[in-house]
């Protein structure tokens, strides 16, 4: 990257600015750079270069001082961040620490953040399922406040576009409620997962399919992936450390180096975006106000179009903080609804069980994936006393029993034994939540962070619909696990789990046809400031039951190509 000369406005002017370098920002950068736009990517955190900045990636388990455990100091200092399942001794350097970036919880909200180049794309769980028409149509069918302005058909080609490039492993299951994508070779189900799949097919006559998870792993890399410098996934399942092979999709391994290779990318880490600059004369955004996180210097950058991909909550904050004569309540916020309708996925419960059958078999190797039960509740019509539905993870593995009886030679002999126990079965719940006006993020009136940006106040909560749905999952799963012959079936509610810990927070700057009820149009443009695009989680009108990242990627690629076309037509 060439040195930054901030002395002249010309050198601070680009065709496009992308705020954020995570999973959607990386896609915006790639698409805009591929289309020849000189693109500045602003990242508030430090630089993380692919491979060289993954300090733990090749460490063996015994090379960690605490064998993976967190120190008391780390836990005490980070009661929120350390709740995240991926926050371990090997990955803590990729998470924001609680004290570094405070926020105000009007209600408990576990806000998990990754401030660095690549953002949370280094840390994500890599589940990648398409939405179906039923997911897009759901909010209108069920009378939600806000409805999607796009259909599955609008997004389908863009799903294909991002799947081919990112590399998505999966099986063509032919399900109407979970459309097939452009898949690389699927992972294999374990014997007991296959058994469960067959039993469910038998008992529910195909209405409760179980499939192998679809995930962003290169099981069978193609020339397009080698061209990115990525290689086959080695199935270590240590993804949270960053992958030296680029075996899973991240901005760092894929979109950012690709954008860099076009010669059109300028990446500027340590750049906190304070607000978007609105030009009253032209009626457009003219650029962004950045605070250098190291020097605290204020710098303005200019561009014809701006993509906001700062991650849901921060995208909301930036827009709310972008106040002007025309937009006293935040850029594009004429209806006063910006920041409201924050929604998320409910992961509040799970199940476990054992299987005493198939004891002649086991699994071998490692699989960075599991089986998946697509939503089967209220898909085609309303069937229950709660709205919408849930998907579920499902896995069955066969661990070696750890016999820890005795002491001395006896104990040692026990530890060396290689006896397999019963199959261990696990499932997690992922429920759709209903977007509500009462769930919001707003700016604190007085408290600011070290860079002069008002702190977030978060007020997001579960509701009765969520609780009913959790209970239904537990009841239905109990029935299903029983039908499959499993024993010792237990529900495992997660009592300390708050909204946010799902790391699927969405909404606040939602898409919709009506400017009275939404902030973005069907192209992810602000209704009232057309050269600003929001294509991260903030734009999501509803959340359905799929892991959201693939949809952010598809929305971003679609919006970026639209923006390029509009620029060419001189409409922006």
């Amino acid at each position, binding site marked *: 990257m060439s040195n930054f000369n901030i002395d002249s406005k010309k050198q601070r002017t680009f065709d496009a600015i992308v705020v954020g370098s995570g999973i959607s920002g990386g896609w915006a950068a790639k698409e805009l750079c591929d289309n020849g736009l000189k693109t500045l990517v602003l990242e508030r955190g430090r630089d993380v270069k692919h491979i060289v900045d993954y300090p733990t990636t*090749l460490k*063996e*388990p*015994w*090379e960690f*001082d*605490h*064998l993976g*455990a*967190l*120190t*008391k*100091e780390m836990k005490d200092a980070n009661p929120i961040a350390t709740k995240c399942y991926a926050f371990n001794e090997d990955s803590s350097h990729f998470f924001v620490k609680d004290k570094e970036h405070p926020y105000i919880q009007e209600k408990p909200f576990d806000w998990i953040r990754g401030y660095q180049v690549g953002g949370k794309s280094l840390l994500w769980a890599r589940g990648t399922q398409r939405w179906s028409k039923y997911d897009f149509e759901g909010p209108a069918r069920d009378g939600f406040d806000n409805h999607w302005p796009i259909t599955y058909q609008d997004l389908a080609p863009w799903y294909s576009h991002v799947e081919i490039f990112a590399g998505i492993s999966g099986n063509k299951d032919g399900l109407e409620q979970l459309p097939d994508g452009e898949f690389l070779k699927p*992972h*294999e*189900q*374990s*014997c007991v*997962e*296959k058994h469960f799949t067959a039993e469910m097919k038998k008992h529910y006559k195909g209405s409760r399919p179980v499939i192998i998870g679809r995930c962003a792993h290169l099981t069978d890399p193609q020339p397009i992936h080698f061209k990115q410098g990525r290689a*086959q996934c*080695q*199935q*270590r399942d*240590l993804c949270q450390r960053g992958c030296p092979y680029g075996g899973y999709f991240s901005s760092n391994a894929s979109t950012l180096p690709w954008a860099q290779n076009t010669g059109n990318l300028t990446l500027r880490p340590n750049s906190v975006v304070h607000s978007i600059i609105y030009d009253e004369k032209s009626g457009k955004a003219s650029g962004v106000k950045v605070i250098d996180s190291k020097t605290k210097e204020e710098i303005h950058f200019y561009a014809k179009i701006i993509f906001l991909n700062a991650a849901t909550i921060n995208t909301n904050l930036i827009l709310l903080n972008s106040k002007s004569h025309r937009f006293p309540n935040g850029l594009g916020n004429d209806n006063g609804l910006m920041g409201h309708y924050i929604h998320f996925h409910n992961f509040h419960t799970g199940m476990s069980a054992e299987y005493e059958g198939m*004891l*002649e*078999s*086991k*699994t*071998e*190797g*490692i*699989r960075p994936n599991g089986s998946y039960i697509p939503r089967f509740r209220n898909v085609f019509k309303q069937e229950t006393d709660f709205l919408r539905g849930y998907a579920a993870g499902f896995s069955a593995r066969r661990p*070696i029993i*750890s016999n*820890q009886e005795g*002491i*001395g*030679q006896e*104990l*040692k002999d026990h*530890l*060396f034994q*290689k006896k*397999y126990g019963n199959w261990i079965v696990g499932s997690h719940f992922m429920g759709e939540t209903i977007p509500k006006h009462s769930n919001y993020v707003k700016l604190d009136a007085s408290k600011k962070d070290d860079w002069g940006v008002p702190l977030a106040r978060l007020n997001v909560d579960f509701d009765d619909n969520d609780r009913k749905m959790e209970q239904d999952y537990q009841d239905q799963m109990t029935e299903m696990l029983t039908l499959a012959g499993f024993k010792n079936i237990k529900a495992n509610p997660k009592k300390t789990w708050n909204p946010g810990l799902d790391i699927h927070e969405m909404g606040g700057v939602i898409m919709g046809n009506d400017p009275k009820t939404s902030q973005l149009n069907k192209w992810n443009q602000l209704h009232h400031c057309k050269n600003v695009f929001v294509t991260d989680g903030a734009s999501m009108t509803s959340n359905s039951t799929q892991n959201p990242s693939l949809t952010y990627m598809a929305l971003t690629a679609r919006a970026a190509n639209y923006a390029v076309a509009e620029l060419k037509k001189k409409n922006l």
Partner: protein
Amino acid sequence: MVLGTTALPSWAYQWNTQSFTAAQGPNTELLGAVVNAIIPETDSPGAKTIGAHLYIERMVKDCMSKEDQQAFQNGLQKLVSSALKNHQKTFQQLSSQDQINLLTGLQNSSMPEDNQFFKRIKGLTIASYTSSEYFLTQHRNYTIAPGFYHGCVPVQ
């Protein structure tokens, strides 16, 4: 880290001393004897050889609350004083059978803190041993990057 790749247990010995260059704490020697009693050195490496005592010191120091640290220290102290009282020797000087007897005494003690200490030190010793390079590579076919997953293979 300098490793030979073939002969065992020689590299296991080597690996150990070189990987744990951390400063020796006040309990290092005693802990070494305790973990060696729990998982002894035989024709295969014991817990001391793989460095379990150093790991335990680090875990106590870095990962335990003040109260747990104190309870752990009390437990160690009890081993020291029992060895002196019953055998007029340090714990390290006892025969391995006497060491085991003292530890099982704690395990079977009617005082919950004794039992808890025993469980804790045994648990940490096992955690360290079963995460060691020796154990994972020689007893669990461990490899960091298998590159495959087979969902259904026969148990041999």
